[in-house]
C-alpha cells in the first residue's frame, strides 16, 4: 500500500470507503468522518478514550492503523443515536451520575453494549474488567459501574427504581460527639448511592437537594460534538511545539530555514519573531500575582519540555516534521531540581534576566517568602515543656485530565480573535492573552466548551497565546493539542514541598502553638507559586485552634516541569503533614487520636485567625475589625457515620490486624480530619443573567466554568428552585466571554457558592418581576403574596397564571418588556466544609506492598444542591487523592528528563483495582451559601494520604512521613524501623 490509499469498512452498519494516509490511525480517520465520540487521550491507547468496537470487541482506536481496519466492522456510540431519546445504556449512565465531563463516556457506553451482548448478567468483576481499559480521572468508576449494572437490568427487562440517595438518620445532635458503638450496623446500599444525612435546619425543596440528571447528559452520552476539538473549521492549520531537551540552557540561536521551506508549513514562531512581553501564566484575578517571569518564547529554557518554538502547518505530520528541522543552538547550563539545593550558595540562578522583577531573592532562586503570625510563637514554644517537631515530604504529581490541553484560535468575520479552548478560566485568559498578542481585551473572545477534566491544570493561560500568535501570523484557524507526554512535562503539576511542624501542647492536650515551615518547589516559573503555598499555610494552620500560630514559607525556583494549580491547591500537602503530625502527637501523649484532634479542631464559633493574614488580599492585624468564624460544622456527624461505616473498633482487634491465615499481612484503619475553604473571600466573583422566553422557560447565562463537575446543573437547579420551575426549563449557557457575565472561573471550590449565589440573586430579580406581572394579570394588589411553583404564579386565593402566559403578555401584549435579571456576587465569607476521611488498608510486610481496601468519606458540604453530582465529586476526588498517596510520582533521569511520562509507568488507578468507596453527605445549613450550600469539590483531595499513612501506622507501628507509599518505600521503612 502506498502512502495514500482508500479503505472500505463497515462503520456503524454502513459500508464506508475513505481515502487515508498510510500513517493515519483509526481514531483520527473516525473523527474526520464525524465520529466525535472517539476522543484523544494518549497515542498509546492507555486512556481508552478512543475505544471503539472493532469487530464487536472493545479496542483503542489510537493504536489501530486505519489501514488495519480495511474489511472490518467498526462501531462507535453514534450507532445508537438513532432518535432524540437516549438508548437504555446511555440513559443508565445519565441517570446514575456516571457522566461527569463525559470525555470517555462514549467508550464506556460502547464497552457496556459489548459486554451485555456477551453476558446479559455480568458480575461486578466482569464490569470492572470491561472498564479496565478506560481510564477515568473523575468518577473513581463508582457510578459507571452502577450505570452498567442498571443498564443490564433494564436490558433484561427488569424494573429499576429511580437512582437516589439513601436517607440515613443522624447519629448525633449535629453538634456533640457520641460514643462509638461497634454493634451499630452501617446502612447498606450500593456504594454508588450517597448516604444523605438530613438536617432539620434544611427545608424540603422542589429542585434543590434532588438528584436531577445533568443538563449536559444527553449530548455527552451521545458523544455529540461538544468539546474544543469537535469543530471543523475550513483551512485549519495544525500546530506542534518544539520543546526543550535540556533542563536549563540558553538558546544561542534558532535557524528555522529548513522548517519554513518544508511544503505545507505556514509559520514558525520563536523568540526571534514574537514580542518579548512579560507575563505570569496562572489563571488568577487581576492583577496577577508577581513575578511576571514568562514570555511567549524566551531566549532561555528552564525545564525539559519548556517552549522553544512552534510550527503551524497543513497537517500534524507536516508540523512534526518541520519541528524536527528547526536547528537550535543551546548553551547548556547547570540545573537544579531539589528545593533544598536551590537556595544553596553556588546554585545556578534560574532567572538571571533583568526584565523579571519582584523576585524575592533572585540570587538564591527564592521567588517568594511568605510569613504570617498570630500571637508569639517563639515565646510559646520556648515556654512549653511539650514541643513536637516533625518534617514531611510531599511530591510532584500531575492532574492527568484525560483530555489534554487543546486550543483552537481563528479570526472571525470582524477579524476579532476567537479562542475556543479547554480552560477553567476563560475571562482571566482573555485578559491575560490580549496584551501578549498586541490586542485589546475587546478584540478577543474566549469560548470554553465542554472540557474533559481540568483539576487545576487548566487554571492557566497555557496554549492560548501560542494559537493566538499563529492565527494572527497565518490568518488561518490554528489548532494546538498537547500529546500525553507534553501534558506531563509542558503543562502543570502539583508543587512538591518539605514541611516542618513544631507544635507546643499543654499537658491536657490543648494546642498552645503551631509553627509551620514550608520549603516549596515551584519549578522554573512562579505562576501559582505564591498562592498555592498560601493555601498550604491557611489549611495547615486553620484546622486546629491554637493561640499562637506562625507560617513561614520559602518558595524556590528549580528546573522541574512547572507546578501550578491542582485540585486542593496546597491543602493536600498541608493536610498530609498536619494529620500525620497530630496523629503522632496523640500517640506521644497517650491519647486517642480522634479525641486529641477533637479537642483542638475548629468548631462553630472558632476564629479562622490566620486566614486574613494570608493570600493576595492579606491584611494586617490593625486593619481587621473581626476575624472570620466557623458558622456551621457537621464534623461530629461525619465522624460518627464514618466510624460506624469503617467499623473503627477493628483497628484495636489483634485478630483482625494480623489475620491468622495470612501471616505476612497486617491490616489497619486510619483517620484524617479535613477542613477546607469555600471560595476566596473578597476576590472570587461570579455573574449571572436570566431572561424569560415565550413558553415560560428561561435562558440563563453564567460565566461559571463547568469542568464536568455538574456546575451548570447545580446552578440551573438553584435558578429553578427560585423560579418555581423544573430544571429542564432552565437552559444554561456558560463560559463565553462575549456572551456571558464575568466569572473568575472554576477554582477554589467557588462555583456553587459564589456563582450559585449570583444565580440565586439574578433569579430573585426575575422572580420579583414575574410576581409583579402576575399580580397585574391576576389583579392582585400586593405582588409579594404571589407564589411561584410548578411553572405557575399563584395568588393567595388559589387563582393562578402560567409563566408562559406571563411571558407572552410581557413580550407581546401589554407594557411590553423583557423580563430579565442580572446579578453578581462576591463573598466576604469563606465557610469551611468539614469531612472525616477513613482508610482501611493491608500491608504486605514481606514486600512492602500496601493495598487500600476501603475508603470512607463523610462530608459536611452544607446542603448538597445535587447529592448525586456532589457524591461524584467526592468519589473522584478520593480516587485522585488515592493516586497521590499511593502510586503516582514523577521520575527523572540525571538531566531532568521525565522517565515515566505515559500512563502505566505513571500509574493512575483503573476500574478493576479500586478500593470500595462509601460517601456520606452530612447536611448542615450554611446561612451564607445559596440554599445552605458550601463547597465539596476539593475537600476529598485532603484526607486520603494521611488516613492511609495513619492506617499503615495502625497496621505496622511504622510511621512514614513521605508519599507515595510505594512498595519499596514502605519495605524500607518496615526494615529500618
Amino acid at each position, binding site marked *: 500500500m502506498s502512502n495514500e490509499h482508500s479503505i472500505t469498512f463497515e462503520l456503524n452498519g454502513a459500508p464506508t470507503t475513505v481515502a487515508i494516509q498510510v*500513517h493515519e490511525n483509526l481514531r483520527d480517520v473516525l473523527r474526520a468522518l464525524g465520529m466525535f465520540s472517539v476522543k484523544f487521550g494518549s497515542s498509546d491507547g492507555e486512556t481508552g478514550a478512543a475505544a471503539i468496537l472493532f469487530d464487536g470487541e472493545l479496542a483503542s482506536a489510537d493504536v489501530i*492503523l486505519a489501514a*488495519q481496519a480495511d474489511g472490518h466492522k467498526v462501531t462507535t456510540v453514534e450507532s445508537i443515536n438513532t432518535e432524540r431519546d437516549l438508548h437504555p445504556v446511555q440513559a443508565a449512565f445519565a441517570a446514575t451520575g456516571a457522566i461527569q465531563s463525559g470525555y470517555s463516556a462514549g467508550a464506556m457506553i460502547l464497552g457496556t453494549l459489548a459486554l451485555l451482548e456477551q453476558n446479559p448478567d455480568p458480575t461486578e468483576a466482569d464490569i470492572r474488567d470491561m472498564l479496565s481499559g478506560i481510564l477515568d480521572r473523575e468518577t473513581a468508576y463508582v457510578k459507571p459501574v452502577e450505570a452498567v449494572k442498571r443498564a443490564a437490568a433494564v436490558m433484561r427487562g427488569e424494573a429499576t427504581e429511580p437512582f437516589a440517595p439513601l436517607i440515613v438518620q443522624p447519629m448525633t445532635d449535629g453538634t456533640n460527639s457520641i460514643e462509638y458503638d461497634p454493634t451499630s450496623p452501617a446502612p447498606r446500599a450500593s456504594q454508588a448511592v450517597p448516604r444523605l444525612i438530613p438536617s432539620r435546619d434544611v427545608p424540603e425543596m422542589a429542585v434543590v437537594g434532588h438528584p436531577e440528571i445533568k443538563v449536559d447528559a444527553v449530548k455527552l452520552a451521545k458523544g455529540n460534538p461538544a468539546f474544543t476539538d469537535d469543530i471543523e473549521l475550513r483551512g485549519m492549520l495544525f500546530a506542534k511545539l518544539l520543546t526543550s531537551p535540556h533542563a536549563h540552557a540558553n538558546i544561542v540561536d534558532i535557524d528555522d530555514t529548513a522548517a519554513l521551506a518544508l511544503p505545507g508549513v505556514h509559520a514558525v514562531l520563536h523568540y526571534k519573531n514574537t514580542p518579548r512581553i512579560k507575563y505570569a501564566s496562572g489563571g488568577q484575578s487581576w492583577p496577577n500575582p508577581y513575578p511576571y517571569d514568562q514570555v511567549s518564547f524566551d531566549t532561555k529554557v528552564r525545564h525539559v519540555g519548556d517552549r522553544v518554538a512552534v510550527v503551524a502547518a497543513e497537517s500534524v505530520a507536516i508540523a512534526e516534521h518541520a519541528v524536527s528541522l528547526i536547528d537550535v543552538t543551546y548553551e547548556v547550563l547547570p540545573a537544579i531540581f531539589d528545593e533544598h539545593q536551590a537556595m544553596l550558595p553556588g546554585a545556578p540562578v534560574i532567572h538571571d534576566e533583568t526584565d523579571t522583577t519582584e523576585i524575592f531573592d533572585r540570587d538564591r532562586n527564592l521567588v517568594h517568602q511568605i510569613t504570617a503570625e498570630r500571637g508569639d510563637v517563639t515565646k510559646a514554644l520556648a515556654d512549653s515543656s511539650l514541643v513536637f517537631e516533625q518534617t514531611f515530604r510531599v511530591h510532584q504529581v500531575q492532574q492527568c485530565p484525560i483530555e489534554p490541553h487543546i486550543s483552537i484560535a481563528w479570526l472571525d468575520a470582524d477579524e476579532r480573535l476567537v479562542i475556543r479552548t479547554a480552560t477553567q478560566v476563560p475571562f482571566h485568559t482573555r485578559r491575560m492573552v490580549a496584551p501578549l498578542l498586541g490586542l485589546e481585551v475587546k478584540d478577543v473572545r474566549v469560548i470554553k466548551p465542554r472540557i474533559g477534566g481540568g483539576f487545576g491544570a487548566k487554571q492557566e493561560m497555557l496554549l492560548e497565546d501560542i494559537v493566538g500568535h499563529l492565527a494572527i501570523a497565518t490568518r488561518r484557524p490554528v489548532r494546538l493539542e498537547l500529546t500525553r507526554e507534553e501534558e506531563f512535562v509542558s503543562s502543570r503539576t502539583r508543587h512538591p514541598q518539605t514541611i516542618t511542624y513544631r507544635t507546643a501542647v499543654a499537658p491536657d492536650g490543648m494546642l498552645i502553638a503551631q509553627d509551620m515551615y514550608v520549603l516549596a518547589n515551584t519549578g522554573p516559573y512562579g505562576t501559582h507559586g505564591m498562592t498555592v503555598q498560601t493555601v498550604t499555610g491557611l489549611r495547615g494552620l486553620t484546622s486546629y485552634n491554637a493561640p499562637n500560630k506562625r507560617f513561614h514559607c520559602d518558595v524556590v525556583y528549580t528546573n522541574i516541569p512547572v507546578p501550578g494549580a491542582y485540585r486542593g491547591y496546597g491543602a493536600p500537602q498541608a493536610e498530609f503533614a498536619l494529620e500525620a503530625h497530630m496523629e503522632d502527637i496523640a500517640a506521644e501523649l497517650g491519647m486517642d487520636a480522634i479525641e486529641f484532634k477533637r479537642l483542638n479542631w475548629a468548631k462553630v464559633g472558632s476564629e479562622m485567625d490566620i486566614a486574613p493574614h494570608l493570600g493576595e488580599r492579606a491584611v494586617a492585624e490593625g486593619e481587621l475589625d473581626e476575624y472570620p468564624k466557623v458558622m456551621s460544622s457537621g464534623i461530629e456527624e461525619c465522624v460518627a457515620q464514618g466510624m460506624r461505616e469503617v467499623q473503627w473498633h477493628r483497628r484495636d482487634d489483634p485478630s483482625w490486624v494480623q489475620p491468622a491465615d495470612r501471616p505476612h499481612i497486617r491490616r489497619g484503619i486510619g483517620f484524617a480530619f479535613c477542613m477546607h475553604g469555600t471560595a476566596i473571600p473578597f476576590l472570587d466573583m461570579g455573574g449571572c443573567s436570566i431572561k424569560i422566553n415565550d413558553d415560560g422557560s428561561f435562558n440563563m447565562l453564567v460565566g461559571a466554568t463547568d469542568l464536568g463537575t455538574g456546575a451548570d446543573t447545580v446552578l440551573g437547579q438553584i435558578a429553578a428552585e427560585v423560579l418555581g420551575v423544573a430544571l429542564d426549563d432552565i437552559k444554561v449557557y456558560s463560559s463565553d466571554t462575549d456572551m456571558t457575565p464575568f466569572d473568575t472561573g472554576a477554582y477554589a471550590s467557588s462555583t456553587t457558592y459564589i456563582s450559585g449565589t449570583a444565580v440565586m440573586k439574578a433569579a430573585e430579580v426575575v422572580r420579583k418581576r414575574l410576581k409583579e406581572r402576575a399580580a397585574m394579570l391576576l389583579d392582585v394588589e400586593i405582588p409579594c403574596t404571589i407564589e411561584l411553583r410548578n411553572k405557575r404564579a399563584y395568588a393567595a386565593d388559589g387563582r393562578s397564571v402560567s409563566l408562559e402566559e406571563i411571558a407572552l403578555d410581557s413580550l407581546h401584549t401589554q407594557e411590553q418588556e423583557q423580563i430579565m435579571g442580572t446579578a453578581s456576587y462576591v463573598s466576604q465569607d469563606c465557610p469551611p466544609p468539614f469531612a472525616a476521611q477513613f482508610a482501611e488498608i493491608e500491608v*504486605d510486610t514481606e*514486600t512492602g506492598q500496601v493495598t487500600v481496601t476501603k475508603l470512607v468519606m463523610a462530608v459536611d458540604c452544607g446542603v448538597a444542591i445535587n447529592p448525586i453530582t456532589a457524591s461524584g465529586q467526592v468519589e473522584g476526588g478520593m480516587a485522585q487523592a488515592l493516586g497521590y498517596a499511593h*502510586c503516582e510520582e514523577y521520575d527523572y533521569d540525571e538531566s531532568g528528563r521525565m522517565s515515566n511520562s505515559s500512563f502505566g509507568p505513571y500509574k493512575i488507578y483503573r476500574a478493576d*483495582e479500586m478500593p470500595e468507596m462509601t460517601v456520606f453527605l452530612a447536611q448542615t445549613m450554611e446561612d451564607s451559601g445559596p440554599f445552605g450550600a458550601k463547597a465539596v469539590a476539593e475537600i476529598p483531595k485532603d484526607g486520603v494520604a494521611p488516613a492511609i499513612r495513619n492506617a499503615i501506622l495502625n497496621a505496622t507501628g511504622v510511621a512514614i512521613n513521605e508519599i507515595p507509599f510505594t512498595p519499596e518505600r514502605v519495605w524500607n521503612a518496615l526494615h529500618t524501623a
Partner: protein
Amino acid sequence: MPLVAAYFRPDSLDEALSLLAGPHRIVLGGGTTINSDRQRSDVEVVDLQALGLDSIESSETELRIGATATLADVAGSDQVPDGLRAIARRESPSTLRTLATIGGLIASAHPDSVLLAALLVHGASVDLAGSEAMPLASVLAQGVPSQAIITAVRLDPTGVLCHAATGRTPADVPIVAAVARAGAGGISLALTGVAATPITVDPDDPVGGLAPPGDFRGSSGYRVELAGVLAARALGGLR
C-alpha cells in the same frame, strides 16, 4: 503513532516473508506496541491479520496458540488452562488485550510480562516461518531471527500453575513477579522484573546470580529481595 511509510497485508506466509526482506520492514501484529511507538519513523509494516494465524488448538499434551491470537482470545478460550487464561486477562487492560497478539508479546520480550513468564514455565517453544522452531527462552534472549515470522507458540498445558507478584497497585504491571509450575517434568519457576526479559530460574536457588536493573519502581537490591519472597510464595502455592 509512528510515521508509517508503507502498509502491506500479505495473503500468505510466503508473501509475508518476501515482503519482510525489504528494508525498514517490520511485522505488525495487533499494533499495540508498534503503533504506540512514537520514536519510530519511516517504517514499513507487514500486517499478518490475513494469514489465519489466530487459531488456538489443544491436545492432551500440547496447546498451540497462533501468533495472531489476541490476549483476549487466550483469556477467553476454553482450550487454555485456567491459570494461563487468568494471567492473559491481567496482562493488558480491556481495550488493548483485544488487539495485542501472542506473537507480538513474544517479539516484544517485555521484561515485566507475567504471561511470558507463564509461557516459560509451561516449556513453550515458538514456531517460526523462515526459521527453525526455537524455545521461547531462546527467542526472548536472542530476539526473533531476522526475516522470520512467529507463527505460533506451543506449550505443555498440563500441570499446576501458581504466581505471586508485587506492584504499586493491585492491577499494576508487577515490579517483580514469580510464576511457578508443577508439571510432569518437575517444578519450574520464572521471574519477571529481574532481567532484560522474563527468565526461568532454579527453583532451589531462585535469586542466585540475579543482578536486576533498578528503576524508580524498585531498586536492584529490592528486586532481588522481592524475587526471593515471591518465588517462595509461588512455589509454596503449588503445595
